[in-house]
């Protein structure tokens, strides 16, 4: 399965700029979740958007979901050096398992 597969990007941006990353998936979902992972560390949950939602905000994060295109985007506004990490999307279906994408590496340059 190719669910929850991000565009395999490596973003390098200046502090204060916005970072946008995308995720596409292939089958129906109940929800889509974004996680952050600092190098060699655990997965930190950022935000969940349900299949009947189109947009969600949490602090400096904005997530969109387009179920017709089977895609999602994560926008981090006013990026900080501490946002440097890998970002994964993961799709959830009724069978409980999450299907993760390959991740986007984001480097924020101070």
């Amino acid at each position, binding site marked *: 399965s190719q669910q929850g597969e991000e565009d395999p990007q490596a973003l390098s941006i200046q502090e204060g700029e916005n970072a946008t990353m995308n995720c596409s998936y292939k089958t129906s979902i*109940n929800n889509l979740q974004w996680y952050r992972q600092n190098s060699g560390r*655990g*997965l930190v949950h950022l935000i969940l958007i349900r299949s009947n939602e189109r947009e969600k905000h949490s602090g400096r994060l904005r997530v969109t979901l387009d179920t017709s295109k089977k895609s999602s985007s994560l926008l981090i506004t006013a990026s900080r050096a501490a946002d440097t990490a890998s970002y994964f999307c*993961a799709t*959830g279906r009724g069978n409980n398992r*999450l*299907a993760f994408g390959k*991740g986007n590496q984001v480097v924020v340059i101070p």
Partner: protein
Amino acid sequence: EPEVTQTPSHQVTQMGQEVILRCVPISNHLYFYWYRQILGQKVEFLVSFYNNEISEKSEIFDDQFSVERPDGSNFTLKIRSTKLEDSAMYFCASNGVAGGKDTQYFGPGTRLTVL
């Protein structure tokens, strides 16, 4: 804020040895999961566990793997005879809502190195 904990943080073992990775899920959660991440690769689902039994497992979760909830708090993953390719980061996760419709909270992971 409650969190999922995992021990040990790093486990080194010889090929063919048995290992047990331990997790303490969030206390009121009912669904428990193991995932693994081989270095530089995707996070992969291994198994989900609910009501004291496996609810789903992936093709990775073969007879060498088993899970157990030996008491009211711990959730373990056992690999009976480790192989070199079992070297990975193993993550435990939990949530409290049926059908995977809610957030899965992940532990910090156990890095397993098989020599």
